[in-house]
């Protein structure tokens, strides 16, 4: 069975949207961050699909770069999140609104 590339692209778009909406509605910083990962992977899927359709290796290598960057973001992000949580256990994103206006 062959699945048309359009389906993959649609799936990626749906994943991207789910990630974006998730980021908007969730309160937990970790979950918000996972939503960003979902969006990045949606982009990866798009890259691979296009690479396949264009018969071009570059799109697939791009995925590796994105993965590496995502990993780096995770490391730093978790570090920042932990440093906050150490001061305020159980804090959600909404608890951080001291800076406004």
């Amino acid at each position, binding site marked *: 069975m062959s699945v048309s590339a359009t389906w993959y692209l649609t799936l990626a778009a749906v994943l991207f949207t789910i990630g974006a909406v998730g980021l908007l509605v969730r309160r937990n910083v970790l979950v918000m961050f996972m939503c960003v990962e979902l969006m990045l992977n949606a982009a990866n899927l798009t890259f691979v699909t296009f690479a396949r359709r*264009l018969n071009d290796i*570059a799109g697939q290598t*791009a995925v590796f770069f*994105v993965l590496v960057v995502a990993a780096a973001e995770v490391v730093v992000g978790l570090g*920042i999140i932990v*440093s906050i949580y150490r001061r305020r256990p159980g804090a959600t994103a909404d608890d951080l609104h001291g*800076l406004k206006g």
Partner: protein
Amino acid sequence: MKLLAVLTIVTPHVNYVAILPELILIGGALLLLVSGQLVFAKIPTAFYSIGSGAIAAAALVASLVIWHDVQARGPFTTIADSVAVDGFAIVFLVLVSCILILASAIANDFLVREGIDGPEYHVLALLAGSGAMLMAAANDLILIFVALEIMSIPLYILAGMDSRRRESGEAAIKYFVLGAFSSAIFVYGIALVYGATGSTNLPQIASYLNTNIITSNGVLLAGLGLLLVGFGFKVSAVPFHMWTPDVYQGAPTPATGFMTALAKAGGFAALLRVFFSTFGVLRTDWQPLLWAIAIVTLLLGAILGLVQRDVKRMLAYSSINHAGFILVGLAAATSQGISGSVYYVFVYAILVLGSFAVITLVGGKGDENHDLDAYRGLGRRQPVLAFAFALLLLGQTGIPLTTGFLAKLYVITAAVRAHSYALAVIAMLSAAIAAAFYLRLVFLMYGVKLPVGSGGDEGALSLPVTGEPDDGLDPTGSVPTGVNIGRVVVPVPTAVAIFVTVAVTVVFGIWPGPLVDFVHAAHFLF
């Protein structure tokens, strides 16, 4: 054996000299990081600062060497066309090096004052600097993305560096979450552009767009829009700006100054290259978009700056206003406009570094003395410092005989030449509104009693912004409690850095030739 022969991987030729500044910064950062572990004695902060300054200076020298090279032999690309070495990139290499040198001097005094040991601050700054340089030189969307992250991730950490102030942590989280969000959008944009054009290499995309008439360009334009969102976030264009005031206010002050200068430099370098040079063919599609974004950015930055009491937050909105001005140059979409934008970025980076250096000093121990009241009467207490700050603020206002004036003049002239009269008028209007909050700070420092407006009560300001009592901005009143107006300590390195920024602002404001010529050399390779 046969199999191995087939598997021989042809690695691209790497011209190491062409990426020497970036290599120096990254290598230097790593060296600085391990140097602390190699000796048992505690290394003083000053060592790291001097080291960081020296590394940045070496990068500056390397940038100038490449500059010489490019002047002699013309621009070129390296590493499989993914890095462009052209006048445009080099202007930003030089700018970033200068930012790093000044920032390491300013940060040193802050780190000593706050007792933050270790090389981390400088290491992160250098790494972020290498990212900004790569953004300017990147010739491939993937490399731009990687460079963007190399620049951004250290900035997230720098924003949260000051573990004792909870605002710092809050700033870091906000910056990080929103930054990651925008990065994801950016990457998706790259993927779509790749799908539509078959390449991520900028010149290849450009030549594809030039040679092919795309019948269905929805994916391409959507990708371009997503790229714009990603860049817009980095340079704080409205409506992608909302992190800016919070992060500026929360981050440690020297880091704020550094991040403003660097993110604007890196972000605009890549934005200008991608939109003007690569997607120039599509300018009729993106120009109205930039036009609208420039207008709201100009106005919102100027208007919201008026009602801020926290100086860092005020300058955050001011930086949004400045971003609008730089976008005006791009929205003109002429080479004159691009020159104007590049000049503006250069000038603004220097101005903002100096301004935040003064704010760092006034902030005092604990980095919390940022209320407008802290500046009341500064002109009497410390005339030299106040005068320097006043000049920097006037430069940001765009008073003639400063570089800020020429910068505004160039972008507005470009807009007029491109017949965007409305944009030019709004830009000037926003400058007038923004002038109100810069000048308010200047007046506050010099204790100028502003004339009493008709119908206003005695002592209230007739100056537009400050009339209402709840602003608490009556300069004739007494100093509220909780605001420290003690003598500001001015350490020598910061004093030198401030002097340099003021000197650049004034000297090149009066004698613009050299700087303008230098920036005019910022030609794109393609």
